[in-house]
């Protein structure tokens, strides 16, 4: 390709082509494009420029360009886009490219203004869309929070209703939720599920609402028939809370239904065994027993924590999940803190 053809090519591409000498002087190899004269009005072909006369951005790029030329790397090095303000106040979007051609160190400067409008519009649109997406995500999060708060409010009302007819205190109900959430956290449950069990666990005995007062509030021991009716509270609770499609209530339904199942399969209502029993129900079984043992009941005094844990250790052979009981023991400090902080005040 002849020098003239090459010069025409540069002209067609709207490039300013500078040859860079080692003494930091640069020679303009082609007749510079008209836009280049906004910055250097008197520049012509073969005109020499000192690097100090270059725009600040290009002076910065020359450092990278020098490295590129010195290492004789194949290919081109692009500066990235920059906006340069001409002395007349107009702004131009440009890019420079450093190339080595047969030991000639060339700096090609091109105006991307022709595409600038399109490029700018695309970027603008893309970023405006990202901003809209951010706003929508925020709104979804806000609305989800509102729904969650409503679910929690409904759950608290349900729990309050159950407490009215039961001997259990509000503090016990709250502790069961907090203990269960602590266990779930330790087991690495996702935070949304931890939040669910915190409110769902307190509803474990909600089915007692369907048990006649004469049985529920009977002082002393229940007969076999009465106990059979009493046992039905888990099924009643499970059915009450089932089928809503709400994650919190689904968890509550599972816990209500299965929290009296035992590890060895001797529990009720379905006689499930081992890990057939849903994990949420196995967690609640453990924390419910603990809380009952370390607090006073009408039929017993409060046991010391060590005695309670010794009893539970026995129960971990047949009644409680032994692996989950080990987890419970590993976080006993946190459990004890919850117990101490949540003593009998009303919910």
């Amino acid at each position: 390709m002849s020098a003239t053809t090459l010069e025409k090519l540069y002209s067609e591409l709207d490039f300013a082509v500078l040859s860079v000498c080692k003494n930091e002087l640069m020679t303009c190899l082609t007749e510079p494009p008209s836009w280049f004269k906004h910055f250097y009005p008197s520049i012509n072909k073969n005109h020499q420029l000192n690097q100090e006369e270059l725009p600040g951005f290009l002076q910065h790029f020359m450092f990278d360009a020098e490295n590129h030329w010195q290492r004789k790397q194949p290919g081109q090095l692009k500066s990235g886009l920059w906006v340069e303000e001409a002395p007349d106040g107009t702004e131009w979007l440009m890019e420079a490219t450093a190339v080595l051609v047969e030991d000639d160190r060339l700096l090609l400067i091109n105006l991307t203004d022709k595409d600038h409008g399109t490029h700018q519009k695309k970027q603008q649109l893309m970023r405006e869309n990202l901003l809209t997406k951010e706003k929508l995500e925020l709104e979804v999060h806000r609305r989800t929070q509102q729904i969650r708060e409503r679910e929690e409010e409904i759950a608290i009302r349900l729990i309050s209703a159950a407490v009215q007819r039961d001997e259990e205190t509000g503090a016990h109900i709250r502790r069961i939720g907090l203990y269960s959430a602590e266990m779930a956290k330790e087991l690495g449950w996702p935070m949304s599920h931890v939040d669910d069990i915190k409110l769902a666990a307190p509803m474990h005995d909600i089915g007692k609402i369907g048990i006649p007062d004469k049985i529920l509030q009977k002082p002393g021991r229940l007969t076999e028939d009465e106990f059979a009716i009493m046992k039905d509270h888990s099924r009643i609770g499970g059915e009450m809370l089932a089928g809503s499609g709400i994650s919190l209530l689904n968890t509550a339904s599972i816990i209500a239904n299965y929290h009296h199942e035992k590890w060895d399969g001797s529990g009720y209502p379905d006689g499930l065994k081992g890990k057939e029993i849903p994990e949420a129900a196995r967690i609640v079984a453990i924390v419910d027993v603990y809380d009952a043992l370390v607090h006073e009941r009408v039929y017993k005094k409060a046991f010391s924590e060590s005695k309670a844990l010794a009893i539970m250790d026995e129960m971990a052979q047949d009644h409680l999940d032994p692996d989950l009981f080990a987890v419970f023991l590993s976080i006993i400090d946190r459990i004890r803190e919850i117990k101490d902080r949540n003593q009998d005040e009303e919910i």
Partner: protein
Amino acid sequence: MIQKKICLLGAFSVGKTSLIKRFVESIFSDKYLTTIGVKINKKKLSIADQDINLMIWDLEGEDDYTEINTNYLRGSAGYILVADGTRAKTLDSALSIHKMVQDLLGDIPAVLAINKADIEDQWLISPASINDIDKNLTVIKTSAKSGDNVEELFTTLSQNMVGTK
């Protein structure tokens, strides 16, 4: 006169260009116009009887598809990180850029601007998360719109750069 290069860094649409325009030209526009590539602005300052020519590099903001070209940071004497108080994620971006720059350039002076202080009642960056920021990083609440603390932002960084603060 000494010359110092500083960079403004942060997520897109946090107000980097607006802060510069307010500082250099004392103007503000509500219209969001995204920055493409880099634009260099200049401003002369006098700090403790020392004249400084600030070369302010306005870098295109980061988004899911655009990362900062780290070549642009070379030679910086300091940098301003910018977050938008109404967009919590932009603080995470600013702090992650801060870490990247520290890894690259070491501990050069930096200031964090939390912008849009004129609508602080709508901020989603909580006082607690501001409190959690490393105490070595000066945090300044700015408003490019009202001009509040914009001068202070650039002056604080300049003072840190010339060692008068």
